[in-house]
């Protein structure tokens, strides 16, 4: 029964620009992940979406960085997180320190 969700996550990461994908519940329980973010980040990702959404507006939470963006979207009980590299950069570069930006 779980193979459909796992296959969907694996198919998503076949795109070279996608670093990882993660699905979690509203309680922060990891439902499936592939790549980066890993299962340890499920709780943090869930809380970020809970803090920014209300009954009328469920925005897409974007974490922008030098080499890619992480987009988090809640859909009716499941939270999907997609880590995608920016199009102009072909290979990921290490980032050291700094701050984390959140755009809504």
């Amino acid at each position, binding site marked *: *029964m779980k193979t459909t969700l796992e296959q969907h996550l694996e198919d998503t990461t076949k795109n070279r620009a996608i670093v990882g*994908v993660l699905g979690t519940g509203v309680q922060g329980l990891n439902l499936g992940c592939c790549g980066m973010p890993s299962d340890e*980040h499920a709780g943090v990702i869930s809380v970020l979406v809970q803090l920014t959404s209300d009954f009328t507006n469920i925005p897409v939470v974007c974490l922008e960085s030098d080499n890619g963006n*992480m*987009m988090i*979207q*809640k859909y009716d009980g499941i939270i999907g997180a*997609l880590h995608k590299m920016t199009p102009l950069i072909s290979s990921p570069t290490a980032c050291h320190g700094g*701050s*984390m930006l959140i755009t809504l």
Partner: protein
Amino acid sequence: MGCCYSSENEDSDQDREERKLLLDPSSPPTKALNGAEPNYHSLPPTRTDEQALLSSILAKTASNIIDVSAADSQGMEQHEYMDRARQYSTRLAVLSSSLTHWKKLPPLPSLTSQPHQVLASEPVPFSDLQQVSRIAAYAYSALSQIRVDAKEELVVQFGI
């Protein structure tokens, strides 16, 4: 699935230590139990592999089962209750001091050292936002396929 900090890694020694019962169940109880525990020591010395496997399964199940119906629920005396509470708190204090796994907070990946450059760059493409919405919607539909499929009775009777 699991809690926020659970993973699919194998159980470490610390996890096994955490799951061990606080009080040794093999110690003799203070009052006699009314229920009869299965006697699996009466098998002949020459046992087949099947009998050995069955007896090991029975032993493992018996060690994991807490028969609340057989326990004498008349209540403990006050001093026994206080002793056991003190024993539990001491054991918890010892375990909590050795818990270091929960203190490590995993950071989110991909930080930046030049925030003004990221702010001045192009915004997130709308196609990417649509893509993540599509992925979340498809994951929700895939998750709805996970359901309980009852195949047999949940409550079984152990043959004694």
